[in-house]
């Protein structure tokens, strides 16, 4: 076959809905531009209301588009031309992409409402909403684009926006470091995306996904098996970065340094969802061998991250590990070929994970206020407001946050009648159908139990019992009495998100995901539980986890517990960073040092040459000085003599003018006479 061919995709006219979708895409871009450049010149409340109302409008438009789309419609227009190369950009509107659009805009709306209150008095507020707008518009770009090339651009923009938001409080050293870490791990993975993109363009001649799908399904282009495998490997690697899979997931727990609404958005709808979304879109590019890798990586990630959450005390990090673990489930689903299940879990997870983050955020917000108020009373509490060891007792003081948390918690650990149960069952069922995946299935089932364990533990320590901060610092007792429900702007998103975790929100059948009503996957959902034993098994494992946590939690030594080497190892992210250090960074430095020595040797050689050159230059200088310059000076002297003689000939006397002219005329006369003869 001949590489470097170029397939000119057919241009397709845009439907009315495409312009609506483009409006949805460009609205946050506009918000970004306006808010970024007006900056501090407009007031905080104006800024918040503008951004939030724009997102609200986007949500309504998304609903409209979703309800209007029936069969997939594609628009494709010319983007740019270079010589014979014509790049196009395309937009695909199907019930799959538009339902994702609804999910993203809905979560974004909730997060915006929440942020209006949560971020109100925080530092650097003027940059928060523009960055958020950038984040959302980039994500919408990924959802709607039909061209892998465009997706890559938005992919990078998502990376940039996440970098800006994770490091939002960049004055904090940890926040800056976390942003850098997220950025670098993502970039390392993105390199794979670039290479994959290049390979796809070289061998298939186009990056339009719709076109690629037909090219591959009709086998009209035969690509060497090695290349096809490389493309799949590279694509999967790049999504491992963005979707935080083993071994790239270490950036995600650190990313909790960002504001809580950002974490909610990042975990639910934008950043980590992007990787899964791209894999779902590029499903046809995955070869068989890669599916196996996906299932195993997913299982390993799910298990490892869940184990890490067991001994974690940071309220947000627990949720971060649970996200990594849940994304592992989605990877497994894609690996088994059941992309619809992956998408279904992505959608349900988006809602309940956003709910979890926001309800935990509500508690953190209160904790933060306690810290601030005592600071106003000249008492500085040097405590981590995210630490669950200092919380407790919020069930009574903040019931809305508590019940919202419980609803989302139930969805996450897979209690029946909640959405998480349905989607998790679907994934487990599709794993069970393939007997080669029995070990990953076992790991997934174990993870279900561990998830139930660590979530119950978090529930217990955060909301039940006594308020331990007041026990440690008696000065906070006064503050404890003042704790009350948060502002309605925080509570409304919590209530809405809690409602969305109920199973009828996505499916009317409480135990089977076969009749999903609005969250349309690219293909109809297959599977669900084939046998009655699977839900029974998972429910009982969940219950075991919950009970175990309940009984263990009260006994858990919060401080000074004996540190086994195993837990140290777990808390150090299983040594992934150390491995990166040993495998990449230290060898790079060694090579660099070696090259420095080499450079010094080269320098010596160059210096020797330079000395020689200087020596030669001295000789040449001598020649130049005495020989050439002498000649030059002679010429200048000659010209000067000639010039001054002309000048002196006619020094201002009209007689001399005339005599000069006459002499010349006489000379010419003589010249003519010579010509005549």
């Amino acid at each position, binding site marked *: 076959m001949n590489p470097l061919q170029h397939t000119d995709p057919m241009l397709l006219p845009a439907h009315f809905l495409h312009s609506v979708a483009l409006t949805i895409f460009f609205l946050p871009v506009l918000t970004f531009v306006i808010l970024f450049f007006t900056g501090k010149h407009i007031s905080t409340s104006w800024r918040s209301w503008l951004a939030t109302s724009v997102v609200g409008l986007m949500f309504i438009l998304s609903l409209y588009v979703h309800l209007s789309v029936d069969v997939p419609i594609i628009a494709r227009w010319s983007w740019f031309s270079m010589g014979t190369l014509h790049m196009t950009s395309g937009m695909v509107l199907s019930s799959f992409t538009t339902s994702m659009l609804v999910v993203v805009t809905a979560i974004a709306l909730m997060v915006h409402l929440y942020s209006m209150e949560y971020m109100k008095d925080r530092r650097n507020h003027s940059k928060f909403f523009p960055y958020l707008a950038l984040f959302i518009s980039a994500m919408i770009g990924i959802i709607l684009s039909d061209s892998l090339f465009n997706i890559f651009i938005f992919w990078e923009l998502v990376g940039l926006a996440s970098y800006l938001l994770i490091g939002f409080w960049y004055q904090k050293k940890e926040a800056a470091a976390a942003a850098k870490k997220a950025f670098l791990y993502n970039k390392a993975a993105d390199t794979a995306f670039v290479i994959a993109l290049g390979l796809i363009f070289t061998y298939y001649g186009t990056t339009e996904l719709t076109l690629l799908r037909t090219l591959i399904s009709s086998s009209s282009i035969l690509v060497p098996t090695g290349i096809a495998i490389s493309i799949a490997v590279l694509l999967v690697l790049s999504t491992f970065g963005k979707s935080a899979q083993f071994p790239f997931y270490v950036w995600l727990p650190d990313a909790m340094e960002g504001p809580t609404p950002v974490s909610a958005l990042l975990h639910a709808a934008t950043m980590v969802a992007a990787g899964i979304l791209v894999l779902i879109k590029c499903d046809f590019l995955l070869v068989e061998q890669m599916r196996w890798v996906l299932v195993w990586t997913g299982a390993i990630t799910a298990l490892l991250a869940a184990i890490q959450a067991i001994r974690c005390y940071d309220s947000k990090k627990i949720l971060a590990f649970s996200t990594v673990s849940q994304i592992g489930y989605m990877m497994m689903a894609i690996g088994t070929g059941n992309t619809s299940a992956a998408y279904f879990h992505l959608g349900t997870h988006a809602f309940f994970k956003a709910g979890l983050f926001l309800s935990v955020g509500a508690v953190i917000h209160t904790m933060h206020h306690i810290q601030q108020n005592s600071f106003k009373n000249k008492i500085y509490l040097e405590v981590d407001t995210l630490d669950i060891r200092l919380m407790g007792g919020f069930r009574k003081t903040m019931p809305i946050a508590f019940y919202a948390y419980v609803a989302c918690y139930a969805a996450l650990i897979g209690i029946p009648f909640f959405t998480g149960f349905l989607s998790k069952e679907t994934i487990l069922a599709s794993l069970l159908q393939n007997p080669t995946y029995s070990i990953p299935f076992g790991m997934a089932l174990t993870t279900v139990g561990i998830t139930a364990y660590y979530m119950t533990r978090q529930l217990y320590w955060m909301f039940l019992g006594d308020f331990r901060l007041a026990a440690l610092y008696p000065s906070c007792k006064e503050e404890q009495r003042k704790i009350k429900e948060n502002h309605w702007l925080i509570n409304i998103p919590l209530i809405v998100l809690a409602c969305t975790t109920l199973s009828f929100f996505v499916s009317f059948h409480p135990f089977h995901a076969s009749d999903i009503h609005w969250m349309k996957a690219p293909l109809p959902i297959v599977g669900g539980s084939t046998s009655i034993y699977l839900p029974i098994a998972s429910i009982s494992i969940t219950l075991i986890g919950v009970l175990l946590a309940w009984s263990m939690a009260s006994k858990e030594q919060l401080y000074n517990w004996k540190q086994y080497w195993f837990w140290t190892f777990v808390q150090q992210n299983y040594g992934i960073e150390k491995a990166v250090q040993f495998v990449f960074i230290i060898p790079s430095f060694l090579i660099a040092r070696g090259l420095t020595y080499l450079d010094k040797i080269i320098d010596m050689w160059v210096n020797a040459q330079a000395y020689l050159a200087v020596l030669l230059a001295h000789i040449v200088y001598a020649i130049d000085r005495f020989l050439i310059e002498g000649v030059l000076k002679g010429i200048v002297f000659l*010209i*000067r003599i*000639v*010039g*001054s003689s*002309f*000048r002196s*000939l*006619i020094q*201002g006397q*009209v007689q*001399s*003018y*005339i005599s*000069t*002219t006459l*002499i*010349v*005329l006489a000379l*010419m*006369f003589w*010249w*003519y006479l010579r*010509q*005549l003869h």
Partner: protein
Amino acid sequence: MIYDVIQHIIQSFPYAVTEIALVIAFLVLMLIDMIQLKDKALWSVVLTVAVAFYGAGEELQQLFDRTSFQEVVYFQHLFHRTPFTLFVRVLILLLGALSAVYLYLSPMGVYWKNRGETYLLLLAIIAGGLISISSYHAMPLLLGIELMSIASYILVAARITAASGEAAIKYLLYGAFTTAITLFALSLLYPTAGIHIFHPDWATQFLESSFPFKWLVLTLFFSGLLFKISLFPFHPWTPDVYQGSDWSIIQIIALLPKMAVFPILLQWAALFGAIDVFVGGLSLLVLATIIVGNTAALHQSNVKRWVAWSGVAQTGFMACTLVMTGDQAQLSLLFYLIVYLFSLPAALMILDYFESKYQAKEVDNFNGLGKKEPIGSVIFVLSMANLIGLPPTAGFYSKVYIMTTLWSSYLEQDEILYLILLLTAVAATLVSLYYYLKIPYALFFKASEKKTILTSISGSTVLFVILISILPLGIFFQPEWLSNWLRVIVAFI
């Protein structure tokens, strides 16, 4: 018989409508000068520019008329009209308008712009140029040249200072001398071939004539013309006259005569370009002009003398094209003329400004002024680049056209003189680099003697200078724009 003659004369008037308009403007200006008007200077300059534009419009209308392709001889074989003369007349009128604007804006020219006779004499010079370029016969040519010359003498003298008086009397004496030679040559030319010098048969008659000294006579006849463009050996007046005049006057006597006289010489060059004696004699003069102009300009410390000598050097470059034949040579001359004459006022205006503000008469007075006058200095550097022939200015193409034409002429005719001219021109360009960059060097690299606050050039001056500088810059990026146009015009010579 008489009736026919009168009829012919009446029919000739439409061709002279510009000259008539100039005469009317002349009279009106005289009236304006006599009654004490409040904004006399403004009225005068507006009238001058208006009549110049009116004339240019008339000429352009005739030029774009299809009937202008044919030569028209009018006023009893005294004048003729071809597309080429029409084109040159347009250029003279536009340059005249530019001169009037310069007069009004010149920082040193307060004396001149409030005196009515300045504009009268400017109109006379424009009229002289028009008459001489249109003439078909030697007499109107001589009259036109004399009209320009005499007006110039008065302009130089009109300041009534010792310096200007001295310059004017030198100018007059030398001019009278050249006119005398021309008249003498005319009397010798009359029996040789007659003096209908632009008649198609005249050249054949001249060539067939057996008069042994006919070429010398022709050279002598040219002396009046060469005096106006200050070609060697008729150049010596230039530095002294320039030194004794103000910048407003220099720009008139340096630009307008060149615009009129070079095209006249070009018409002859087209006739005699293949004749060895003509080419040989003229080449020697051109060669001498280039050498004399460039070497003398090297060591001038006085700015006006330096401008004068560099003008002589530029004349030498332009005159290179007169010794060649062919459309390319004619095109390069017109290109050079337009670029040079329409961009030189910018440089003169800046020098004018520096003299009015810093009494900068010597090159040393410019030391360190670049930091105080950034805009003016940068534009000055640009116009110097234009005169040297460096990119990004149209002067680059002017020089390139002339040198490539010399080279191709050398290749075609294998005449060693062309090669010598080419080599001299290249060497002279290198030498000119030195003297043209003398003032920019002083502006930017030498320390200032006096401490003055940072000021910037006045608004109207900077506008004038920038507007003029657009031309060489624009033509550099699109030289075909001008040369394609000229290619059409030179076909009619």
